[in-house]
């Protein structure tokens, strides 16, 4: 008979071995054995994906490893979250974030890193990709009831679209509900302040710290 801690260890290891099938299987077995899904998420999955994020920061693993670990996380979370009663769901939700590079900008390397790091920090992330028009960012954020939109631009000439995003949210009366985080090569804290963004990340690490601050997530 396996103990709760055994299931938690197996879940953590499945994430760290990028094994989505195993993660889903263990999640189902854990529920069947009566393991609290919130505990399984917090002590198993969250710890595993956070460790992967730290390994990535130390350059021990690369972007594809983080993508695969994140896929395993998503699959196992789907099983476990479905088993959490409505009144406890807030315990595992850290916030919903829409991410993209702004219109006209095809540089998505930094954005890809941020997406993976946000996922490894436990956020629900919707990556809209690159060259995303402002209307699309806002529409998707509304549809998904997102808490934050994170946008990057690598060119000085695409930076104004970050301002456009803030203005569009103001125009639609959504500014109080959806926060804005900006980043990218030519983006500075001064620029973020000038356009009225809520947060700025010089790099992925700073971006993730800002997202946590903006969404009130404690470590």
């Amino acid at each position: 008979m396996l103990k709760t801690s055994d299931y938690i260890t197996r879940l953590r290891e499945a994430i760290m071995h990028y094994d989505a099938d195993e993660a889903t299987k263990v999640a189902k077995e854990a529920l069947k054995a009566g393991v609290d899904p919130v505990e399984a998420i917090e002590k198993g999955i969250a710890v595993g994906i956070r460790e992967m994020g730290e390994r990535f920061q130390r350059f021990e693993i690369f972007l594809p490893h983080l993508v695969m670990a994140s896929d395993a996380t998503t699959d196992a979370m789907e099983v476990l979250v479905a088993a959490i009663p409505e009144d406890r769901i807030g315990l595992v939700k850290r916030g919903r974030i829409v991410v993209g590079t702004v219109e006209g900008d095809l540089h998505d390397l930094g954005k890809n890193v941020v997406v993976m790091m946000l996922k490894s920090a436990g956020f629900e992330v919707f990556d809209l990709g690159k060259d995303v028009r402002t209307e699309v960012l806002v529409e998707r954020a509304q549809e998904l009831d997102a808490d934050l939109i994170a946008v990057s631009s690598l060119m000085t000439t695409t930076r104004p679209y970050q301002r456009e995003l803030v203005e569009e949210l103001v125009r639609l009366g959504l500014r109080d509900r959806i926060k804005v985080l900006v980043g990218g090569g030519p983006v500075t804290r001064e620029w973020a302040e000038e356009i009225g963004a809520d947060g700025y990340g010089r790099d992925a690490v700073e971006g993730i710290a800002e997202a946590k601050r903006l969404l009130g997530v404690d470590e």
Partner: protein
Amino acid sequence: MIELIEVAERARTGPRLEEKKWNLTLFRKMQELIKEYDLSSRGVEEFINTDDHLADDAFEAALDFIVDVGAYCITTNRVIHFDEEEVRKAVREAPDQVLMGEGIDARVFKQGIVDGCKPININPGHHAPFTEDLGPLVAKNFAQIPRTDFIEGFNFPIVDGRDVYDQPLEAYAAIREVAWMREGVRKAGRPGLAIVLYPISTRASSLIAPMNPKLGLRPTDGLLMSTLPDVKVEYDHITTAIVFSNYGYFAVNGSFGMAGGFCGGPEGAMIEGIVRPIIGYIAYGDSLHYTGVEHLAYVMGERIVLHPVNWARSVVFQALSRNTNMIYMEWNITCSELCTETGLLENALRSIEATVNGAALYAPRVSRARMNAGQTPVEPEFMIEVSDATVKAKLKREEAGKILQQIADRLKGRSPEKGKTIQECYDLVKHKPSNEYQEIYRKVKKDLVDLGLEFQYT
């Protein structure tokens, strides 16, 4: 060569694939090829590769990648396939020299020679952000560097006092960029010097806008049209390539492999660094390629990452030299900012490395370039001096590797150094660095003399 319109056709009709699946397919194939060709365990302890067989194997691995996997079009989400004969033919046909510029300012840009003993070609800048008031003056200063073969444009957020924002302003800004470059080279007394358009935006409208033999881009000029990381291409560039190639312009491809990205570690990036120039030639008609291997943390300006990235980069250059005609350049980027000792040491290391690997110098900017703080003429002039000293010393790969090791020792434990803006450390009217920058330059140069390099001017 496969016609560009055929590439466009394949991008429109090739098999559909989700981008995320492409990324993971790329990674898995790279891992498979690293194992198959045993790329990770041969000579990795060296600073510069000396194993020619390894370079050849890396090249074959890259060809296998193109033939088995292809390239990905992000506009259509389709895979573009090429057969082996097409790829090998393209590699054979790629030009080994490009005639650029006009009249007495025309230059020939050539493929370099590994362990060669001739001065290499150089693009000293820009590829960096400058404000519109400084633009033409900056261009003049870079054109004043006698060894400059071509200069690239720059980007700027404001034109005529308006934000460069959306297609009409982007197209207008692209026209202004080239006009300022032309003005700059004229003021430098080199009106025929070749100019390369730095994209204000990657949309075809702004790439094509400055084509104008009288006031804009002449057919002897070029444009930067890079393949995207992870072996991706897109429609705007294919469209632009079709237009430009019909009028005879040359095109430059930024095409290094990114260690830490979807290709994996340095060995995967090594394969990507060979694949992307080939795809750039086939899909966009690019004839000059700044390639090699970079590290995610270095490019983002987070930390100075050297070995084994240098080693992997050298394998890329040697693979292209030994197996193709392609003209390759080293992207001599630094983590440290302007007017710093660390920055010049980083420049020196990469200049020596480029020279012995037969890579031309492509001097872009510091990795996280602030406005008006991306570059000064000091760095490319210094790179040329270091490169010439390397040639003069007849350094071969093995001896050069030892010097690089010593420079790396000096850089060990250092964080990227904060620096100054161009106005703070360079007089653009007198074409002269500040006293502080001159002091730093002399100190680093003396350091290199102590390591065995002999400069023409002390």
